[in-house]
């Protein structure tokens, strides 16, 4: 069955609506942390997140639960400042929320909560939950014949240590869930590392997989566009090593 749209996609892309640009992200990070310099763990995902929300994801910040939207699941919920900065930049919530980061009554915690933050698809923090949840999201979209949305899940290379991910990596191709894309931001922080590379963990299980520079916006955009019908897709986005 070919993909079908349940409703019309938005006439305006998020890029046209966005009040902030990529150049504004450092200032939006500073609003949260108070620091002018940002740690590697808070910025490793920044470029991938920006390219996703700026160029790839079909999602309307004014209607972030629309059925036609692409589902983006941030599995690596640790270090969410870049995620919050991008969501605020794209208008999912006011930038005035950013200085409340991690305060008692703030919607913005050290790990994101889907019930508190518009645009956040899953509450994360404990590692290894996003891709298994995304498996179910993709199963449900197929059962509901809502076949156009992509399900894109962001993980970290150290997060891949969790065995639950490998249950999903093996099962997703066997269940023919070709609308799933996994993106692994690789800052070489896995204690026991992945000899032979991360991409092979996916390609051995039947995924298409590419490894790219996780700071190169054109390469990131091309990698997400390279998903093929019939296979789930993995993007390994390599960034500088976590110090």
């Amino acid at each position, binding site marked *: 069955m070919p993909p079908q749209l349940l409703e019309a996609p938005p006439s305006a892309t998020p890029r046209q609506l966005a009040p902030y640009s990529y150049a504004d992200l450092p200032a939006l990070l500073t609003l949260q942390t108070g620091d002018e310099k940002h740690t590697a763990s808070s910025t490793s995902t920044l470029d991938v997140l920006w390219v996703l929300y700026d160029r790839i994801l079909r999602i309307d910040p004014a209607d972030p639960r629309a059925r036609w939207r692409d589902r983006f699941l941030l599995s690596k919920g640790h270090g969410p400042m870049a995620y919050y900065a991008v969501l605020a930049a794209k208008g999912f919530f006011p930038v005035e929320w950013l200085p409340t980061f991690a305060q008692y009554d703030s919607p913005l915690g050290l790990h994101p909560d889907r019930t508190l933050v518009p645009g956040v698809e899953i509450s994360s923090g404990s590692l290894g939950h996003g891709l298994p949840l995304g498996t179910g999201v993709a199963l449900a979209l197929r059962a509901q014949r809502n076949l156009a949305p992509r399900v894109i899940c962001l993980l970290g290379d150290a997060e891949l240590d969790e065995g639950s991910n490998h249950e999903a990596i093996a099962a997703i191709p*066997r269940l023919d869930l070709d609308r799933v894309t996994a993106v692994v931001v690789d800052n070489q922080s896995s204690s026991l590392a992945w000899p032979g590379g991360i991409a092979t963990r996916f390609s051995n299980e039947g995924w298409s997989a590419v490894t790219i520079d996780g700071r190169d916006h054109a390469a990131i955009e091309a990698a997400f566009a390279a998903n093929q019908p019939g296979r789930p897709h993995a993007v390994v986005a390599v960034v500088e090593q976590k110090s």
Partner: protein
Amino acid sequence: MSRKSRSMRNRFVQVASDALDANPRVAVVLADISTDRFVANGAVARHPDRIINVGIREQLMVSAAAGMALEGMRPIAHSFAPFLVERAFEQVKLDFSHQGVGGILVSAGASYDTPGYGRTHQGMGDVALLATLPGWRITIPGHADEVEEALVEAIKSDEPVYIRLSDQVNAGPVSSGPGLATVRAGSPGAVTVIAVGPMLDPVMEALSGSDATILYTSTVRPFDGPGLRAAVRCPKVVLVEPYLEGTSAGEVSSALSDRAHRLLSIGVPRGEHRHYGTPAEHAQAYGLDAPGLRRRIASWLGPYT
């Protein structure tokens, strides 16, 4: 659908399969266990997109079911109790409760249903563990008809529900709904005995000829505290549960917190139970058969009555 099965597990398969036919929100997620039964009755062939077998991957089973709930479906995840609840407990805690979505967990192989398999397949702690989470409806059917009633109601709702199937069954169903039902009324001074699920028949046999009020419930969370307060006239209460001893003792104590009372909790004792054999032998070893229950209740009542 063929004649209604008296096996809880087969009745579950029948009712879930009917629900798949009738309700497009329903999905069943499996980790091999019971898949053969959904194949044999044709449900998998009719609903290949809504009966999902992920293989022997219980973490994924629970998470994928929760992911389907995020998209508005009503998933049923099913396996043996130790693997569904204990192995995948963080998935239950975070992917259902913390995401703020409901779903239905249906276990088989309760407590010592399959004792030949040993400790790895015993699941005495499932109810206590799930009871640490907010908002779960926890149902312990005593009969296949109660399984059907619980599952049909669970499918209608959006709440998180656990239904615990067992091979230990009562001879007949009790239609108590979610609350306590009075099965037998004793005199005003008689002890009140709460029998949970499959413990009803052994309790009735143990107390035949004794003066006791016998209450029954198949729903232990939420616990029917108001029903207990209304039923208890004498401040002596016995709670008999087919899993870890004392699992619902706190619920009884809370319901009676403003009344002087005595509570005897009976269930499966904590321990590494390194024995095989039959369920009847395990019930006898733990004092959960009728003679054991009679001895324990009589000895507890003895000095004070």
